[in-house]
């Protein structure tokens, strides 16, 4: 009986205009979106390779002269970003190391994304979360109310057909029909992906990730189908059912994702980056002032002890002033070290505080938006595609390791000196004796690994669980409601 009911639902849906529209949209949009995403990835990869080449040329040209060289590390684009743009345009691509240990992470392609800014992205995630979710609701909004209005529902129930079979067949039948065009277009997209020169589809990590992406997508669509069926069961007229379904879609797909960051910003405001930078500048200026005072006091003391005299502090160099300056320069090292460490600690404290607050605000916004299955789906896919917050943390960790490695191999072999000469205070880097910077290979972030499946799952497991819970909840409520549904 169940099989017959499912077949009936399938036949009915296939012969409907909705199926034709769904098939057309899937077959056009999903492969098109994939094609555009692949082109975008190819360009980003090309940019990455060019940036590395230019960096190597610059690095060899600098010859680590006088400590002017600054090692840079680059992050390649994540191959799976073709499925979800996520935070791709905002995730930083480059780390610039510093002598003092305070590395900078920045986006090396800062202003070449006007298009991404203006137009958003038609990627796989967008198409599924926005277009296909709406189609799924269109498929299901009159699954019960339509039959009631036609009078066929009471005829079915008047036979010895258990209600649970009726509702089950409706859910499954519509879902199976919808999956056909979707899976077909997904396969076509994978063919496009396989034909690309820069993407190797048949590697274990990629296959596993794509398989997981597909499962999550199917789960999301199942969730929306259950939601549509629930709405149909809770109403008694197709018009009302459709109206409610559409408004629910507007809320879940358009409103909730936008309003949750706004609520998070109001509930937990975070200082702007300008204020943080101003605070850092003020703190550093204060500490540097103290440092200068202490260094000046030391210089004065040395001038008096060597008999040169304070009034000749910045006179032209002669035997006496040279001796005084050499004595001063040999003694001022610990002072410089002490204040540099203080500056680094303060900057790190301010930056960590800002980063923690910013991350908390982002987490709050994400948690608020998780009442929408659309958001759960988007987050899950972006994490698995390597364009989510987990990848941001992954790159930060690698950047820190890179900084430490470069500092150990190169920067620690230079010493910064602030010294006094006839022009006043000057500064520069002096190479350690016996160290030949030209012999050190150009440092890179070698063998960069994007966040793996395990790492992504550890971040997005909650989203997957929520999708399952939403599906179960919608199904359960629809099931129970249909058992009490007035079919007359």
């Amino acid at each position, binding site marked *: 009986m169940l099989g017959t009911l499912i077949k009936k639902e399938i036949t009915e849906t296939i012969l409907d*205009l909705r199926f034709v*529209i769904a098939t057309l*949209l899937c077959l056009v949009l999903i492969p098109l979106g994939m094609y*555009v995403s692949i*082109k975008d990835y190819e*360009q980003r990869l090309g*940019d990455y390779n*060019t940036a590395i080449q*230019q960096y190597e040329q610059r690095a060899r040209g600098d010859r680590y002269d006088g400590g002017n060289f600054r090692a840079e590390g680059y992050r390649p684009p994540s191959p799976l970003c073709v499925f979800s*743009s*996520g*935070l791709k345009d*905002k995730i930083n691509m480059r780390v610039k190391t510093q002598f003092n240990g305070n590395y900078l992470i920045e986006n090396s*392609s*800062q*202003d*070449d994304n*006007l*298009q991404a*800014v*203006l*137009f*958003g*992205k*038609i990627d796989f995630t967008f198409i599924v979360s*926005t277009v296909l979710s*709406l189609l799924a609701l*269109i498929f299901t909004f*009159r699954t019960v109310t339509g039959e009631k209005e036609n009078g066929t529902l009471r005829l079915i129930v008047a036979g010895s057909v258990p209600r649970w079979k009726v509702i089950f067949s409706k859910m499954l039948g519509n879902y199976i029909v919808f999956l056909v065009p979707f899976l077909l277009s997904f396969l076509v997209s994978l063919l496009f992906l396989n034909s690309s020169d820069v993407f190797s589809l048949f590697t274990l990590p990629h296959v596993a990730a794509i398989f997981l992406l597909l499962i999550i997508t199917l789960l999301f669509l199942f969730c929306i189908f259950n939601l549509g069926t629930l709405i149909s069961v809770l109403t008694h007229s*197709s*018009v*009302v059912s*459709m*109206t409610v379904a*559409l*408004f629910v879609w*507007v*809320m879940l797909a*358009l*409103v909730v*994702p*936008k309003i949750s*960051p*706004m609520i*998070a*910003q*109001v509930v937990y*405001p*975070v200082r*702007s*980056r*300008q204020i943080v930078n*101003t605070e850092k500048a003020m703190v550093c200026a204060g500490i540097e002032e103290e440092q200068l005072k202490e260094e000046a006091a030391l210089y004065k003391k040395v001038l008096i002890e060597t008999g040169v005299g304070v009034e000749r502090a910045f006179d032209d160099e002669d035997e006496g002033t040279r001796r005084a300056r050499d004595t001063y320069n040999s003694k001022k090292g610990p002072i410089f070290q002490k204040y540099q460490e203080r500056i680094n600690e303060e900057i790190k404290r301010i930056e960590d505080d800002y980063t923690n607050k*910013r*991350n908390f605000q*982002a987490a709050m*916004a*994400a948690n608020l938006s998780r009442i929408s299955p659309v958001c759960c789906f*988007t*987050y899950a896919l972006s994490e698995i595609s390597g364009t989510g917050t987990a990848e941001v943390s992954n790159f930060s960790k690698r950047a820190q390791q890179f900084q430490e490695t470069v500092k150990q191999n190169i920067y620690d072999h230079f010493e910064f000196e602030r010294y006094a000469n006839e022009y006043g205070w000057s500064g520069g880097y002096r190479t350690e004796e016996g160290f030949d910077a030209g012999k050190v290979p150009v440092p890179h972030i070698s063998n960069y690994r994007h966040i793996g499946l395990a790492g992504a799952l550890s971040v997005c497991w909650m989203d997957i669980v929520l999708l399952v819970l939403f599906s179960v909840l919608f199904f359960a409520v629809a099931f129970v409601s249909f058992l009490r549904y007035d079919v007359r």
Partner: protein
Amino acid sequence: MTWRVIFKEILENLLSLRFVLSLVLVICLFAASGFVFVGKYTDQSADYWRETNKNLAALRERAGALYEVAFYEQTVWREPKLLSLCAEGFEKTLPNYFRFNVFTADLPGVKGRGNFALPHFSDIDWVFIISTVLSFVALVLTYDSMSGEKEAGTLRLMLANTIPRYKVLLGKYFGAMFTLAIPLIVGLLVSLIIVIPSKDVTIDAVAWLKILAVAILSLLYLSIFVFLGIFISSRSAHSSNCMVLLLVVWVVLVILLPSGGRIFADISSQSPTQVDLERRLDEVGKEIWDNSDKFGKNAGSMSHDLSWPGNNPPARARLKNALTDTANQVRDDHHNRLLAQALTGRNLTCISPLAIYARASEVIAGTGINRCADIYRQIKEYQVVLKEYVRSKDLEDPESLHLVNPDLGTARSWKTISHKPVDFGTVPKFQERDLALGEFLKLTIWDIGLLLLFNLVFFAASFVSFLRYDVR
């Protein structure tokens, strides 16, 4: 008779569930938008004034020596616009600061924006609510305007009387428009009521006019979807089919086509990248350095000691000016190509009424990419004015070599630019100007015309379609 039809339509809509849901949703969204805007605008204004005053204070300090005024890297921030409440214009992600001195200007940059890790969706402004939510409501109100009445049997009863079909059509149109105007106007008022009491917000007469212009534009935009709904409704006998078709059309016009601008832009031309720019700058710089002798003997070498016989200040100045001018040209070209590609993509998306409406609203509100491009242009003009000021003041100093060029080292040690102090009050300061009325009209007239054209097309289509509609 038309008025009776209109009243009947309005009453029917007002008593329907869909109107109630729409009204509640739209009012909540407008209220949320207004509420969030107030906090955001206050913070942005505070940031803007702090940075602007810091820039001016630093410029004032450098007025102690003319050459320092020339070489000071001013940082100008984009002023937060009050009317970004109406049309945010991608303010969060478009460049918001410009750094330049008399000789060079960096490409516009993005700094200090909120929290990049926040979920990846933009803010809700009036344009979003109207273009997405209210257009959707327009379709929900009109999808069964003809087919629904046909299914109920009332359409044939109405037309059995001596009521011309065009009056029925107009009655349905105006009924739907008046119904839509209610949540629109109530929503706008709610948003303004929340925003106006804020101490940082002052809406002057020009701003009020612009708000009125946005409201009228919004009605023009919504009218397209009302006609579209009536047209599709008069093409089918079943409301459910109409709804499905309309939803697909809505998804294409409102969601896919505007987002598809990126595809169009990519097809039209290759996107220039930062990496390309850096490579070109390296290439042109190297070429000029390799041929530095053509600017004069020893142009490529210098000593801070002016008595060194190898120094050739005029040649050095020519070389440095050539380097900077060429680099500026490369940057400007890069910027223009980026802009051209983005605008081309945007122009191609103007088959979507949403894209036209959004663009026109941004121009009226003074936000969006056109504003960014305009500020960059104004900064270039300001650079010229400031450079002329430096030149004229430099000529007054007999100790200067009068070789205004972008080499800071020679400016310090050779005095190629005067070291005398200047009166800060006479130093030109950058002040952003809003678009002139002529420019503003020039940018919006086409968009308004296109919206009117869409209205005419869909009106004609629904008119012809309904005249031939089988009402039995």
